[in-house]
C-alpha cells in the first residue's frame, strides 16, 4: 500500500519493515521548567516543561516551543530536579490565623469617621 504523502513514499518500503523497539527510559531526556519574560519590567512566568539533553540545548529548544508566538524578551530554563516546592498539605502555611488587617490599607477605613466625630477638637492649641 502506497502512502498518499510524497514525504512518506520516499521512506517506503523500509517504513513497513521496522522492528518494534520500545523506547528506553530517559530516551526523551530529562525535563526542564521554562519561564518567559514577556516585557521588560514584568515578572518571568512559568510557561511549561520541556525535554532537553542539557542546559544549553534546553535554551535552544525552549525558544521555539514557548516563544514563537507570544511576546517574549527573555527565556529562563531550570532543570525540574532543581526546583523545590511546598506540599499541598502545607497550604495552611499561607492562611493567617489572626486578624492581619493592621498591615493592609483596608485596615484603615474609619479614619475619616474619627475625624468627623471629634471635629470640635481640631483647633490650635493655646501656647
Amino acid at each position: 500500500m502506497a502512502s498518499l504523502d510524497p514525504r512518506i513514499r520516499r521512506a517506503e518500503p523500509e517504513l513497513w519493515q521496522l522492528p518494534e523497539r520500545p523506547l528506553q527510559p530517559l530516551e526523551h531526556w530529562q525535563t526542564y521548567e521554562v519561564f518567559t519574560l514577556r516585557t521588560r519590567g514584568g515578572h518571568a512566568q512559568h510557561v511549561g516543561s520541556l525535554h532537553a539533553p542539557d542546559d544549553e540545548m534546553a535554551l535552544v529548544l525552549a525558544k521555539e516551543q514557548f516563544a514563537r508566538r507570544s511576546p517574549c524578551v527573555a527565556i529562563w530554563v531550570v532543570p525540574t530536579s532543581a526546583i523545590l516546592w511546598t506540599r499541598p498539605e502545607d497550604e495552611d502555611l499561607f492562611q493567617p490565623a489572626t486578624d492581619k488587617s493592621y498591615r493592609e490599607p483596608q485596615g484603615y477605613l474609619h479614619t475619616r469617621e474619627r475625624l468627623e466625630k471629634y471635629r470640635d477638637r481640631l483647633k490650635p492649641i493655646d501656647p
Partner: protein
Amino acid sequence: MYGNLTLRPEDIENWGKKVHEEDPEKLAEFEARIARGEKIEPQDWMPFEYRRQLIRLIEQHAHSEIIGALPEGTWITRAPNFRRKLALMAKVQDEVGHAQLLYSAAETLGKSREAMINDLLSGKSKYSNIFNYPAKTWADTAIIAWLVDAGAIINQTTNSKGSYGPYVRALERICWEESFHLKYGYDSVVYLATGTPRQRAMLQDALNRWWKPIMHFFGPPDNQSVHTEKLLKWKVKLATNDEMRQQFLDMYVPKIWELGLSIPDPNLRKNPETGRWEYSDPDWDEFWRVINGDGPCNKERLAVRRFAEERGRWVREALRSPQARYVTPLA
C-alpha cells in the same frame, strides 16, 4: 486537535472495580474541592481512578495531536502558494507543539513520555479515530483545518473548564492557537467554494468523504456510552458526546449551507419542536471497526510514527547524559 474521550470495552469491564481502597475522608475533601470549582494540582492527593482516567484522556489527546499532524502534513510540500504553504507549516507545527504540551501535562500524573509513546506504537493506547482517514486532495486540508479543528475547539473549550490544573493550562494555550487554525481553514474553504468549478467539486467531494468521520468525532451517542457520572462529577468530562455534537451542528451546518455545499445526509435537519438536530445513523459499526485498527490509514499512521522514533533514536541516544535522572514535570 483531537477527538473525545473514548471508553473501550476493557475500560468498561474494569469500570467500578475497586482497584484501590480510597481513604473516604480524603476522597470527600477532594470532591468538595472540585465542587467548589477549585483546581487539582499534580502534588495533590487524588483518587487512583481520577489519575488513571486523566492519564488516559490527556495521553489520548496528545497522541491525537502527533498523529493528527500526518494527514495534513501530506500536503505541506504541495501547498499551492506562499500564504497557504506557510500557514500549513505553522499549523502542523502547532499540532506537534500541542502534543509536546499535552505529553507534559500527562507526565505530571506520573507516566513518562517514553511509556506513552510506547503505548501508542503498540496500539495499547488510542488516538482520535478521524486521523485514520486519508487526506486525498488539497481540499481535504481545508475541510480538516475548518471542520475537524472546529470540532476540536468545541471539545477542548469544554475540557478547559475541567478540574486538573496542568491540563487546563495546556488547553488554554491550545485553544488560542486552534483559533488561528479555524480561521485559516475557513479562509481556505471559502477560496475553494468561491473558486473554479473544479475547486468547488473538489471541496464538495472532500466534505462528502469527511462528513461521517466528523459525525463520529464526538464519540458514540449517549445512549450507547457507559455511564460517566463519576467523570462528570470529577470534572474530567464536562459535556456528553451528544451535547457536543449538537453544539457543533448548531454552529457549523448553517455555515456549510451558506457556502452552497450540500451535506451528504438527506435526513439532517433541525427539529423545530425539540430544537435538536436529527441525522441518519453515521454507521457506528464502522466507528468501532476503525478504532479497533481496521481503518484506511491505521497501519500507515503508526508505521510513520515508529519510523520517526527510529530515525531519531541515534540523535536522542547521542545526547543522553548518563547523569540524567527523570523527574516528573511540575506543572
